[in-house]
C-alpha cells in the first residue's frame, strides 16, 4: 500500500477525525509545491536578471555610440525583465531625451519622480524639459529640487551646476532680479576656484551688477593671476563703473597678454582717451582742466569738419545744422576764459557729448576720443545729478 493510499484511506474516515490529518497533508503538499515552484522561479529569475543586464549593457553601449534609437529599444527590453529597476528607467528616459522624444522622456521622468522626489538627476532633467516646454513654475520647482536634491556622487558640484542652470534660465527669460538673487546665493557658497569665480563674475556682469562682478573678477585674479579672461573681465567691469584708472591697468595687462584682441585694444584706447580728456578728473589743476576742455572742443570740431567733407549729402546737411549751435562756444573756447570760468567746462563737455551723439556713422567711424567724449559727457551728467 503506497503512502498516497494510506493518506487517502485516512482522509476517507470520519470527517471529524480526518480534518487535522488533512490540514497536515495540505501543509506538506504546500511545502513540496512551494519548493518546486521556488526552484522553477529562481531559475527564471536568474535568466531574467541576466537578460536585463545584457540588454541594459547593450543600451548603454548604444547610447555611448550615439545610437539613441537603438538604446531606447534596448533599455525598453531591459525593463521588460526588470521593470522595477529605477536606474534602467532613468537611462531609458535619458535615451529618449537623446532621441529628441522629449515628451516621452518627460513622461518617464515624471513616473520616476514620485518614488525619489529628491533625486537630483531626475529633478534636473525635469527642470530642463519643463524649461524647454515653457512651464516656468514647474521648471523652477524642479531646478530647486536639483539644487537641494540628492546626487549619487559629487553632490556639491552637481548642485552648483544646477544653480548655474537656474540662473541661466532666469537670464534667458530676462528675469535679472531672480538671476541676481540666485547669483548672490551662489557666490556666497563658492569654493576657492578661479574658474568658478570667473563664471559667477561673468554672470554678475550679465545681470548688470558690475560692483559684484568686479569683486568676483578680482578674487578670480587673486586665485589665478595669469587668467586673461579674469583680467579682461575686471577691466571691463571697472570701465563700465567709470573706474578708468583701474580699467586702464587691467586692460593694459589684458592687451599685453593678448595683443591681437582688437576689442580689448579699442577699449584700452578709449580708456586712455578718457583719462587724457576728462576735465573732471580729481587732483588736476585748473589750467589742466581748461586744456582738456579745449581738447574736447577741438575733437568735436574735427568731427564736424570730417562730416562736412563726407560724400553723404544728408551727413553734410546734419553737420551744417549742428554747426550753428556748436559755434556759440567759439568765443569762449580758449585757455584763459575756461580757466577763469571753470563752471562753463561742464556745460561745454555736455554740449560736446550731445554733438557726438548726434553725428551719424556716415561721417566716418568715431575715434577713441569721440567715444571718450560720449562717456565723459555721460559721467558729467551723472555727477551733476
Amino acid at each position, binding site marked *: 500500500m503506497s503512502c498516497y493510499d494510506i493518506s487517502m484511506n485516512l482522509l476517507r474516515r470520519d470527517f471529524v477525525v480526518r480534518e487535522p490529518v488533512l490540514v497536515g497533508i495540505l501543509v506538506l503538499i504546500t511545502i513540496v509545491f512551494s519548493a518546486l515552484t*521556488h526552484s*522553477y522561479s529562481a531559475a527564471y529569475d536568474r*535568466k531574467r536578471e541576466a537578460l536585463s543586464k545584457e540588454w541594459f549593457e547593450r543600451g548603454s553601449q548604444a547610447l555611448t555610440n550615439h545610437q539613441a534609437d537603438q538604446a531606447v529599444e534596448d533599455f525598453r527590453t531591459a525593463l521588460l*525583465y526588470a521593470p522595477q529597476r529605477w536606474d534602467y528607467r532613468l537611462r531609458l528616459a535619458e535615451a529618449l531625451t537623446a532621441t529628441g522624444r522629449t515628451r516621452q522622456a518627460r513622461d518617464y521622468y515624471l513616473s520616476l519622480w*514620485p518614488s525619489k522626489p529628491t533625486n537630483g538627476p531626475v529633478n534636473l532633467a525635469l527642470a530642463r524639459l519643463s524649461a524647454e516646454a515653457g512651464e516656468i513654475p514647474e521648471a523652477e520647482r524642479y531646478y530647486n529640487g536639483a539644487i537641494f536634491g540628492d546626487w549619487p556622487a559629487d553632490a556639491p558640484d552637481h548642485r552648483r551646476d544646477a544653480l548655474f542652470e537656474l540662473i541661466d534660465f532666469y537670464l534667458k527669460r530676462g528675469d535679472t532680479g531672480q538671476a541676481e538673487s540666485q547669483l548672490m546665493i551662489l557666490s556666497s557658497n563658492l569654493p576657492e576656484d578661479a574658474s568658478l569665480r570667473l563664471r559667477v563674475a561673468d554672470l554678475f556682469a550679465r545681470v548688470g551688477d558690475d560692483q559684484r562682478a568686479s569683486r568676483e573678477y578680482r578674487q578670480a585674479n587673486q586665485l589665478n593671476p595669469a587668467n586673461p579672461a579674469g583680467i579682461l573681465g575686471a577691466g571691463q567691469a571697472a570701465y563700465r563703473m567709470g573706474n578708468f584708472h583701474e580699467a586702464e591697468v587691467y586692460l593694459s595687462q589684458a592687451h599685453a597678454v593678448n595683443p591681437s584682441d582688437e576689442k580689448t585694444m579699442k577699449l584700452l584706447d578709449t580708456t586712455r582717451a578718457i583719462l587724457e580728456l576728462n576735465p573732471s578728473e580729481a587732483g588736476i589743476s585748473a589750467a589742466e582742466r581748461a586744456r582738456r576742455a579745449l581738447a574736447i572742443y577741438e575733437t568735436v570740431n574735427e568731427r564736424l569738419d570730417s562730416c562736412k567733407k563726407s560724400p553723404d549729402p544728408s551727413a553734410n546737411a546734419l553737420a551744417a545744422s549742428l554747426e550753428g549751435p556748436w559755434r556759440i562756444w567759439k568765443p569762449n573756447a580758449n585757455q584763459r576764459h575756461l580757466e577763469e570760468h571753470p563752471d562753463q567746462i561742464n556745460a561745454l563737455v555736455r554740449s560736446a557729448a550731445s554733438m557726438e551723439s548726434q553725428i551719424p556713422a556716415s561721417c566716418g567711424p568715431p575715434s577713441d576720443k569721440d567715444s571718450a567724449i560720449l562717456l565723459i559727457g555721460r559721467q558729467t551728467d551723472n555727477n551733476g545729478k
Partner: protein
Amino acid sequence: MTTTPAISDMQDQRQSNRWEPAALAKRITSKLSFDEDRFFLILAVFIGIFAGLAVVCFRITMEWTRLLLLGSALTPAPLRAFLAPCLAGLVIAGLIFTLFRNAPGSGLNQTKAALYISDGYISIRTVIGKFVTASLAIGSGHSLGPEDPSLQIGAGLASALGTRLHLSRKKMRLLGPVGAAAGLAAAFNAPISAVLFVIEEIIGHWSAGILGAVVLSAVASVVTMRLFLGAEPLFRIPVVGVIRWEELAAYAVLGILGGVASLVFSKAIGWLRPRIKAAPKTFQFFCPAIAGLLLGLLAFLGFPQVMGAGYGFIDQAMHDQYTWEVLGLLAGMKILATTLSFSSGTPGGMFAPTLFIGAMLGGAVGTVERLVFPHLTGSVATYCLVGMGVLFAGFLRAPITSVFMALEVSGDYSIIIPVLVANTFSYLISRQLQRVPALEVITRQDGLHLPALEEKREQENLSVEDAMQPRPAVILDASLTAAQAWPLVAASNEEYFLLQSAGGRIAVIPREALQSLSDSKDPRPLEETRSLITAPYLHPDEDLEDALRLASNHPVVLVLSRADITRVLGVLTLQDTLDAYRKSPVNGEGA
C-alpha cells in the same frame, strides 16, 4: 447518591479506558477537529496558495516559451514573429485533438459550465491541458491573455482537491468560484477585482456564505504569487494627476468609442467562431496555425505589439510612448488579432486583449485631446486606465469589476468619476446594440445554456410587500365572546379573521370556527377557545421566497411592522404569493 456495584464497576472501567492510547487519540483528534464550515475557509486558503503557485508556474512557463520561440527582445525578430505562432498553432492543435480535448477556449465559460453543469467538477487533465496549451499559445505570440486560463486552472485545482476530499456536492459547487477567484487574482495581481469579477461573471449573485472563502483564497493566492514574482504590477501606472471637469467630455467620447469597439469585437468573434466550428475537422485542425500565420503577418507588417498578452506595450502606452495614430491602429489590430486567435480555438484568455484594446483606445483619445486642447493637461495614463475599464464594461459586461479594477490598479480614487462616465456610455451602447453579452454568445455557440448572469444581476427580487394584501378592516378583540364578535364580521366574506389580545398578541380564527362558536353560544372569551390558529409573521421588506415557504404550510401569514410588532400591516396567503410571482417579469422572456 447511591449506585449499584455493577454500575460503579462500569464507571471505573470507563475511567481506566480514558487513558488507553486509542481512546486518548480519539479524544485528542476530536478536540482538534473543526466544523465543516470553518474547515471550508481553511481549505479556501489552501486553494488560494495552490492556485497562486500554479499561476506562478504558468506565468514562468509562458515566459520561457516566449524566450524560446520569440527571443528575448521586446519586439521579436520578423522571422521569429512570422513563424513561431504558426508552428505553435500546429503543436497546439495536435495536443487539443489528441490529449486535451477540453483545453480550447478562454477558460471562463468552461469554469462557469463546470459550475452549473457538473457541480463544479473540472478534470485534472483539463487543468494540465489548459496549462500546457495556453502557455504555448501565449508564449508563441497568439493574441490571448493568461488570466482566464489561470482562472480555470485555479478552479480546476480546487475541484481536484474537493474531489480527493470527497466533499459534498454543495461544497464542490462552492469550490469552483473559490479556485477561480484565486487563479484570476494571482494572474492579474488584483484580489479585489478578481473577487468582484468572479461574483459578477461566475456566481452571478452576492452571497455572504461564499464571499469569505472567495476573498480568503484570492488574498492567499496574491500573497503567494507575490512571494515568488514580486509585488510589481503587470504594467506601471504613472501618476494619475488632477482630472478637470472639462475632460469629462473626452471621457464620454472614450466611452462611446469603447462601446463601439466592444461591439465590433463581440460581433467579429460572434461571426467568425461559429463558421470555424462548422468547418470540417481537418480545417479546424489547421485553424490555430492559420491564425498564427496571419498574426505573424500582422507582426511582420509592423504590428508586433499585438502579439501575446501585450502588457509591456500597455506599459509603454501608459508612458505616452505612441502617437494617437499608432494607438488607434494598435487597438484595431488587436481586435483583429484576438478575433483570429480566439475564434481559431487556440486556448487563451480575453481578459488581457480586452485591457490592451481599451488602453490603446484610451491612449489615442487622451493624445488627441491633448493635441486639440493643450491647456487640458490630462495624463495619457489616466485615459489608458479608463479605456481598460471601458472595454471591460462594454465587452465583458462586468460594470462593477470595471470600476473597481481601475481603482485597484491605479490606487487613486480621483479616477472614479471619469471611469463612471466612460463606462456608463460604453456599457449602455454595448447593451443597446448587442443584447446578449459576448461571453454568453460564445457559450450558446458551444450549445450550452448557462444562466444569463447579466440579467440575473439586474433582476428585481420580489419582497413581501409586493404580494401582501391590506389588513382586514376589523381586528377582533380577543377578550370578546364568539357571540359578541360574530355580528361585527358576519357581513364580510373573509375566510379568516384576526384577533388581538390585550398584550398585543395576534392570532387568527377561521370563519367557520367563529360562526360555530357563536351558534353554540360558547361563553368563553375567544382567546380561551381552542379554535385559534397561531399565524407566522414576516415584515414587508423580507424576501417573497420566505413568504412562499411559510404560506405553503399556513393558511395566512401576517405582515407586521418592524417598528411595532403588534401593528398588522397586511396579510398574505399562498395564492397572493403565487399571483405576485406570476405578475413579475421572467428571465429570458422575449429573448
